């Protein structure tokens, strides 16, 4: 009961906190000066059509490096917490508890028949869609400087392709060695491209050491497509690794 009262108080506090923001809220009437500056410089100095990408990769590139680091730390945490073999002292999940097959956790006491693998529809659809999704992910991260999208979005789409492939063939094992190598290589390439900007251009992660080219062409915007592509590869392999670790937990 006391918990319920605390919950009511905290939620009411949050609502009260947001009321002045919501009541007095009106959208901005003109583009802020900083944003206008970013848009002009994105076009003239970087040659990047997508200003959001220019902000993410260049103007606030250090933030993005930090973000990739946080993602890496979280992935490492997932790998650390989930061990491949069940440790001593861990109990099987009790029948009738809140844990069931929907929670994705194996329940050895339940007598429900284990699924006999995916149906024909799932297998065919995943075999058909998985390569297309993969290609679409690559398209998204290579065109990050031109269209909405970029490394993070493309990486997530690639992960979706991998998940679909796992649905279609649950026994398939991912090539962990290759994925770890690819992830480390792309992470290192990201930092090397940043250092190249430091040596050849204005500063760390400055992409202008490659020619800006003409606006709206695939090979343009200096090193931005390169940087976003390695980010895409890194995010894709990392998240696919997370999904596979959570799956390995179920399999053992």
């Amino acid at each position, binding site marked *: 009961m006391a918990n319920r009262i605390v919950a009511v108080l905290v939620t009411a506090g949050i609502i009260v906190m947001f009321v002045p923001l919501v009541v007095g809220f009106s959208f901005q009437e003109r583009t802020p000066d900083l944003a206008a500056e970013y848009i002009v410089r994105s076009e003239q100095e970087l040659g990047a059509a997508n200003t959001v990408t220019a*902000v993410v990769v260049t103007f606030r590139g250090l933030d993005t490096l930090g973000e990739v680091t946080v993602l890496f730390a979280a992935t490492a945490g997932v790998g650390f917490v989930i061990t491949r073999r069940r440790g001593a002292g861990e109990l099987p999940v009790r029948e009738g508890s809140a844990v069931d097959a929907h929670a994705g956790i194996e329940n050895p006491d339940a007598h429900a028949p284990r699924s006999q693998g995916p149906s024909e529809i799932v297998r065919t659809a995943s075999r058909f869609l998985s390569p297309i999704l993969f290609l679409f992910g690559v398209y998204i991260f290579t065109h990050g400087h031109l269209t909405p999208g*970029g490394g993070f979005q493309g990486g997530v789409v690639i992960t979706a392709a991998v998940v679909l492939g796992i649905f279609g063939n649950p026994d398939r094992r991912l090539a962990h060695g290759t994925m770890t190598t690819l992830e480390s290589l792309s992470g290192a390439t990201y930092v090397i491209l940043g250092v190249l900007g430091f040596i050849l251009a204005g500063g760390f992660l400055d992409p202008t050491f490659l020619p800006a080219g003409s606006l709206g062409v695939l090979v343009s915007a200096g090193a931005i497509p390169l940087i976003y592509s390695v980010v895409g590869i890194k995010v894709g392999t990392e998240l696919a690794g997370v999904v596979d670790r959570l799956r390995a937990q179920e399999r053992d």
Partner: protein
Amino acid sequence: MQYIPAIGSLLIAIGAWGMLTQRNMLKMVIGFSIIDTGAHLLIVSIGYVTGGAAPILDAAVAESTVFVDPVPSALVLTAIVIGLAVTALMLTYVVRLARTKGTLEVSSYKELKW
């Protein structure tokens, strides 16, 4: 008053309520996810400019085009990815705890209760 920030704030309140009242750890993670979504909506709506276009420069852009602020969009992009990573980490802890004790009920974990 605009609807989008109101919906964002409402989602934050709903998520907080869910995290505080639910006893199932998976549902608490879902509550966190809802808070996350509400925060994203709020940040994006702060960056919106009335009548603004997406800040992507192509042939359709005229001299008089007003753009929305790209900085909050970039921040939300970061926040979504971090939210995803944190959610994955929390789910991993949930899986691990459920393995150890065999239940998702958070009230049965009393070791660090004060």
